[in-house]
């Protein structure tokens, strides 16, 4: 499935500076795999040591958080819009 992926500012340097790329995959996990293959610099930002998604990254498909869909197994349709976002949090 061809989909578009929004790259957060903090990862754009690894994707040639662009804010959006096209990718192909039937699940979010496949798209993440493709991004890491294509842009190896993103690996440490996207991947946890166990191969899952980095704990400080959120992924949205058509504005829905994949944590409430099927996580990395969330299936994709043609033209879906994926957004990768850094988790922004902290504490006193």
């Amino acid at each position, binding site marked *: 499935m061809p989909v578009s992926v*929004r790259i957060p500012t903090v990862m754009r340097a690894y994707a040639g500076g662009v804010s959006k790329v096209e990718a192909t995959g039937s699940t979010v996990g496949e798209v993440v795999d493709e991004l890491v293959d294509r842009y190896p610099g993103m690996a440490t930002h996207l991947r946890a040591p166990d191969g899952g998604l980095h704990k400080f990254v959120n992924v949205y498909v058509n504005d829905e958080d994949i944590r409430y869909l099927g996580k990395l197994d969330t299936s994709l349709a043609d033209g879906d819009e994926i957004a990768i976002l850094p988790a922004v949090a902290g*504490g*006193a």
Partner: protein
Amino acid sequence: MLRLTHDLWLELVAHAYDGLPDEACGLLGGRPDPFGSGPNAGMHATVERFVPTANADHSARTYSIDGSELLRAERQLEADGLELVGVVHSHTHTEAYPSPTDISRAELLADWHFVIVSLKAPEASARSYRIIDGSVDEEPIILVDR
């Protein structure tokens, strides 16, 4: 160095007080490195807009910004030719220095400017930091008229 107008500074402080008793947070839109190239390229930013956000934690000790709010802010800023350059949050009872949580959660945000507004003293104060690979570097905040 973070350049900020006086009006934006007042917005930041007002939002910090509005959030009490919880920590308040918001995003900074602007232009990174408007001062050209050189050894400090990429180290500076001019803030053009403050985007107040909700504290999804509803907590006096921690904050988080919901991804959908972040996405909306990012789209809006980009439509206006700006980008996210940092995040602001308040410390309601402690100094404006990054906590261990702030530092660990900054792992993927090495390009960002972290502004902390402290409400500990009767008068609000703020400091700005870069947090890269777990090391904290304070940077000056330059207040300008416009």
